[in-house]
């Protein structure tokens, strides 16, 4: 009798014992219309990562993440990207983490090109039909007025990414934009353009024209290593935005990151030359005062923009692409200076930062003028240097270990792109009074290790 009573009491309480905390979020679109979404941009928009474009990278692009969130606020359920068929990298192989043996016999764990067979079957097939993500790796605002952008010889016999899906390969990127806007009739867009207008200069070690006075090689085509002149940038950026808003679409303009905050330029420290006393004495004798050395950590010897051979200054940047074997075995940075093409010296950094500041002011002005969302991605990515914590994981701008930047030191990991997408969503929500849910960043991949 008593036993029955207890079991009865237990049973009724047990059934009530399941916590129900389900919060049903109620996403709202606010003052915007997310029915049809068009993403415009460069490699960051295409989902480029690990030094290449590949299928899973595209599927983890920030526009794909945004589209997934827009589905709760009235998207038409379609988001077509010009997907590749395989995951090896196009046209070259992507980087993977691997143990590399160096010239001096030492080994290290780091990014290395995928060395296996690369299956590119179907990757160059032309993609036709509606496309919602027209991000083209490598494209600059300066390119928007270049006819036959997808095919001209300057880009190595054609810009392979544009060539894959451009409707009219003889047209300019601006023509393509006009076509895509007419074809898709987007109600909402994101535009993250402009980074390559300064990045090409930086990644060439500041070898091109950096003071804004570059002249075209011909037919509106600027050299890849030049910084796009201010007036050209302003004119062509404005023209692109004008097309995007033509049908009354609302959208987002995203500014460009400061190149000095990305691992491509910070992974190799300028003060990375470790010497014993004897080595320091030898180098002091060789350089006879042009460069000085002590036992311990020293600033690498570089050739600066003006051809001077000297120790790098504390804030100068050595590029990630500086050959490791040359540093280890060929005396680069010590008995031989690191060539200027691998160094961003003080003056070059100033040029890059000045251009970045101007381009970002143009982007901000355009957003204000057309009543669009302005996302200060530059400021957000800078906060990575002190760490952005999400769900117990702290992401930083450290190369490989930071988790946010992919193995090329410029582009992001799927988690990094998800962080960027959240930043965009927060900006959209604030501007349009929408309540689009943010993304669980840690659900996606970071850097994978062997």
């Amino acid at each position: 009798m008593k036993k029955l009573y207890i079991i009865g009491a237990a049973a009724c309480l047990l059934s009530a014992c399941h916590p129900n905390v389900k919060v049903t979020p109620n996403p709202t679109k606010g003052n915007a219309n997310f029915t049809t979404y068009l993403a415009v941009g460069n490699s960051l928009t295409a989902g480029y990562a690990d030094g290449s474009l590949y299928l899973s990278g595209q599927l983890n692009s920030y526009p794909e993440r945004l589209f997934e969130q827009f589905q709760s606020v009235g998207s038409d359920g379609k988001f077509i990207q010009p997907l590749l068929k395989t995951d090896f990298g196009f046209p070259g192989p992507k980087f993977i983490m691997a143990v590399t043996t160096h010239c001096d016999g030492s080994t290290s764990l780091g990014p290395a090109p995928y060395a296996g067979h690369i299956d590119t079957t179907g990757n160059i097939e032309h993609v036709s039909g509606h496309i919602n993500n027209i991000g083209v790796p490598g494209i600059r605002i300066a390119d928007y007025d270049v006819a036959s952008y997808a095919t001209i010889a300057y880009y190595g016999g054609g810009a392979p990414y544009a060539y894959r899906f451009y409707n009219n390969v003889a047209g300019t990127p601006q023509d393509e934009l006009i076509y895509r806007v007419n074809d898709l009739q987007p109600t909402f867009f994101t535009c993250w353009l402009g980074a390559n207008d300064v990045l090409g200069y930086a990644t060439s070690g500041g070898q091109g024209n950096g003071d804004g006075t570059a002249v075209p090689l011909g037919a509106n085509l600027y050299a890849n290593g030049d910084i796009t002149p201010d007036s050209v940038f302003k004119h062509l950026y404005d023209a692109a935005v004008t097309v995007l808003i033509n049908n009354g679409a609302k959208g987002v303009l995203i500014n460009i990151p400061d190149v000095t905050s990305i691992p491509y330029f910070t992974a190799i420290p300028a003060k990375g030359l470790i010497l014993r006393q004897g080595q320091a004495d030898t180098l002091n004798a060789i350089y006879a005062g042009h460069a000085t050395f002590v036992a311990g950590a020293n600033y690498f010897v570089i050739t600066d923009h003006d051809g001077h051979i000297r120790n790098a200054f504390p804030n100068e940047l050595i590029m990630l692409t500086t050959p490791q074997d040359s540093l280890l075995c060929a005396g680069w940075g010590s008995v031989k200076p690191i060539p200027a093409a691998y160094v961003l010296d003080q003056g070059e950094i100033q040029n890059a930062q000045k251009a970045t500041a101007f381009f970002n002011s143009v982007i901000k002005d355009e957003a204000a003028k057309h009543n669009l969302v302005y996302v200060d991605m530059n400021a957000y990515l800078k906060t990575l240097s002190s760490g952005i914590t999400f769900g117990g994981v702290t992401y930083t701008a450290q190369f490989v270990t930071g988790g946010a930047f992919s193995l090329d030191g410029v582009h992001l990991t799927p988690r990094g792109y998800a962080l960027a997408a959240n930043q965009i969503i927060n900006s959209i929500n604030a501007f349009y009074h929408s309540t689009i849910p943010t993304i669980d960043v840690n659900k996606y991949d970071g850097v994978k290790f062997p």
Partner: protein
Amino acid sequence: MKKHLLAASLLLCSAISYGGGYQLNLQGLRELAMGGTGTASTADASTIFYNPAGISRLKGIEASASILFIMPTTGYSNAQGYSATTKSQTFTPFNIYVGGPLREGSKVGVGIGIYTPFGSGTTWDDNWSGKFLVQSIYLQSVFIQPTISYRVSDFLSVGGGFIYAFGKIDYKEALPVQFDNGQDGQAHLHGNANGVGFNLGVHLKVASTLQIGFTYRSQVNMNVGAGHADFNVPASLQSSFPNTTFDSQLPLPQIASLGISYRPIDALTLQFDLNYTGWNSYDSLRFNFATNTSALQNEHAPRHYHNTLTPRLGACVKVSKMLSLMVGGAYDPTPTTQGYISPELPDADRLVLTGGIAFKPIPRLTILAAFEGVISSKRFASYDYGNYSGTYQTKAATPGIGINYNF
């Protein structure tokens, strides 16, 4: 990708989490059934825990034992529309007490208690959204308390016990380093803990119908001396996450209690207890690995617990010589501080409701059954240190059975 390893906090936390005031609730069925009250009553040998002064008041040597079945569940959801629930698990804390006056009429009572004030755990899905903070936590502990009591007069008795505590912990969390196939790494921390403390009590028999009790249970620092820290990480990172040992110290807080037991009529006993718990000793969590690397650093995570005051009420109705019914309840406020609430302990204010039955088929033997339901308020909790937040709710159903025998 510095990882916030927080294991140690967990030890305490799950216990607090599901014991609903672990310090009193489950150490005796009669007390449990009456809302966890018992500081003023000397009903049976479980007084060794509830008020050591009570042993010298017992009529003779008594033995009490019970076993309980805790079934805690915690639910989580966040603004992104994600929700998760912990896996169903059953834990079985138990207690055994033997004690009483040395001989009939003796002023000195002795006894020993073995009880398990912690014995619970939480298991989330390995891939749940808080996986980098906790995947699972399990804690087991046993307290042994030899006790002596002296009856100064009919009015006053005092008592005290020494506590030796031992137990083990097991904790898992994902590490943000991925294998080639996308699987996350994992930290598995497990080891033994022990500590010492004491339990003091004063019991006043103001009148035949009114009893008052005071107890003080000391802090018990549970030391984890050389726990095992095992890391499942990609081969290329094994030197960054070497399998090593860790040590930690977990303060189980001091508790001062006041209890009043009043019998307005023969058939009815009313009890009121108040527990003041010194949670502020759990200010932060330090967690030291024997081997550190750039990826594996010692942890110092703030917790900022604050002291709590828990009122408890209980009633016992004597239906017949053979049968008594008990009910009770308690309001157990959370010691946590907003901004410092990690999913290993998504604690919130708790409402505790209890009931039970005592059946006495023969004069020397009592069979007890009790039930406790713990419901925490739904609470939005944030853990700023790990930037993780959401709405949590914990419920726990705890049935138990036991016996008491008078020798």
